[in-house]
């Protein structure tokens, strides 16, 4: 497939001074950034920094307490994740948003089921859905014998792969991934990174959350750094190096001493 990309990437989502509080807890405030077509926006930050809160707002799962969201330059308020999905925004939530008791294939297509026939005879196209599910999971290196097994019985990583495969399959314009590689093995992580690159190359806007700067830096075009609910920077790739990124995320010099410490302990034992 050859896609001609515009020289100045079109901005799909614009976020303007957005914030969110849960009751008395201010989880997020004053965040401004944008998601461009054909680019990957990485959101980085410590645990509890507000990353998940941020992407839930983009995905329509939360309404912001303050600020404004623009899609294609038009201010929108998503009434539900459905509204966001209908605008082509597909999301992998950190808690995966699966229904544990339902079979894998039903989870894969939940909310966007394939059907056959018309009128009262319109029915689920079970065979096709199972086929696609098996295939998409196989592409990620997960070979499930039985897509009829409840998704709750899959291992943590397998479940995560289903959620990712689903979002990639349905993502039309924007793909949002909240720590997609957290529970994944090295191989599967590689597949996911490749998916991200491929989606980007197809002209999708990608929002990617990770704690691993080595995952973020190679694919990212823009880096939004959060700390305790506020933005401490929204950098283009050209403005920041991997080293700077890493040290910003890890809280300075801490890391260097670690390898040292572990080594020392080891020698002692």
């Amino acid at each position, binding site marked *: 497939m050859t896609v001609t990309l515009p020289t100045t990437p079109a901005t799909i989502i614009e976020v303007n001074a957005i914030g969110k509080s849960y009751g008395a807890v201010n989880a997020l405030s004053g965040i401004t950034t944008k998601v461009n077509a054909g680019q990957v926006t990485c959101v980085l930050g410590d645990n509890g920094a507000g990353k998940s809160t941020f992407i839930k707002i983009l995905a329509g799962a939360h309404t912001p307490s303050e600020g404004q969201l623009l899609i294609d330059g038009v201010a929108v308020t998503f009434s539900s994740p459905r509204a966001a999905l209908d605008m082509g925004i597909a999301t992998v939530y950190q808690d995966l948003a*699966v229904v544990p008791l339902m079979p894998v294939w039903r989870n894969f297509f939940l909310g966007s089921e394939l059907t056959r026939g018309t009128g009262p005879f*319109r*029915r689920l196209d079970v065979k096709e859905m199972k086929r696609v599910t098996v295939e998409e999971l196989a592409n990620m290196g997960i070979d499930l014998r039985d897509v009829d097994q409840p998704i709750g019985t899959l291992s943590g990583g397998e479940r995560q792969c289903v959620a990712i495969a689903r979002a990639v399959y349905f993502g039309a314009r924007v793909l949002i991934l909240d720590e997609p590689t957290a529970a994944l093995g090295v191989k599967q992580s590689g597949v996911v990174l490749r998916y991200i690159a491929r989606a980007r190359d197809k002209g999708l806007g990608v929002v990617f959350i990770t704690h691993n700067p080595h995952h973020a830096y190679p694919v990212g075009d823009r880096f939004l750094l959060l700390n305790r609910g506020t933005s401490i920077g929204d950098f283009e790739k050209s403005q920041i190096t991997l080293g700077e990124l890493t040290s910003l995320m890890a809280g300075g010099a801490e890391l260097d001493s670690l390898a040292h410490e572990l080594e020392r302990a080891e020698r002692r034992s």
Partner: protein
Amino acid sequence: MTTTDIMTIATRPRVENRPIRRILGRPETGALVAALAVMIFFSVYTTTFLTLPGAGVWLESASTFGIMAVAVALLMIGGEFDLSAGVMTGFTALVVGILTTQFGVNIWVAAIVSLAVALAIGALNGYVVMRTGLPSFIVTLGTFFVLAGADLAVTKLLTGQVAIQGMTKVPFYDSIAAFFGSSLTIGGGVFYISVVWWIVVTIIATWVLLRTRAGNWIFAVGGALNSSRQVGVPVMKTKVGLFMTTSGAAWLVGMISLFRTSTVQANTGVGQEFIYIICAVVGGCLLTGGYGSAVGAALGALIYGMVFQGITFAQWDTNWLRTVLGGMLLLAVFLNHWVRRRATGGSR
């Protein structure tokens, strides 16, 4: 160290794919076994249970429970309860009875008005549950109280008594009774049309649950509401639709019992809602939502009807009726549970 054997290991089959296990793992299999056990027991223990006249009685008894149990099962799979389901069966019949006998409304019109009112109440139940976030247990309990009181007070007010009389004299009574109250005599056994309705409702519900998008959504909203919302399932529509299905089924049962007996009392249906829930649970539905089947609920109702009438066939002292009923239901549930557990190797 060698790494060559990884690929050979990878091709080792990890799942025994025996279709028999599949069938045994379905929610209704246990209920089927339990139903057969009950049937065999009473067939052997009494002489009349498995005759055509006998079967006519317990099938009729099971049919109205069955229609409601299937609807209630869908709702339960969708994660909600409807405590107004029982009293709604009386309410819909009273609406028809009062409109026709007191206000002279055409009986067909009255039936349709009654359906519309029932659906509206169902929709209201669903809407209130979804908008307020209150548990449906408490919202529909409110509806139950309101309807139960209104049934009594309004009937008393308009007819001066607590039961509708004189339905058979209403014009066109027979034309509509044919749909809801007619029966067929086969070999001395009387089989009511309600049994047909029961089967039709079960088939439609099964089709919807397993083969349509709506069915997928029902499982999803009951299994994990928030996740469903996040992946774009129309949660509101699904739940409101379920409540409307239940009240629609209650209307059907109301009509069946109205045209079966040509009368209805102000307290009809009070307390029956729990029997529906019992049938659904005996049939393998999870009270917590997200799991179950329509066929299972229908079988649950069959078990209930067979036990209920079977006790009478067995001529046991009815003072012990509830004890025996309770014991039998527990046995049925245990059996159901045991079958399912054997099938799934203890994983549920």
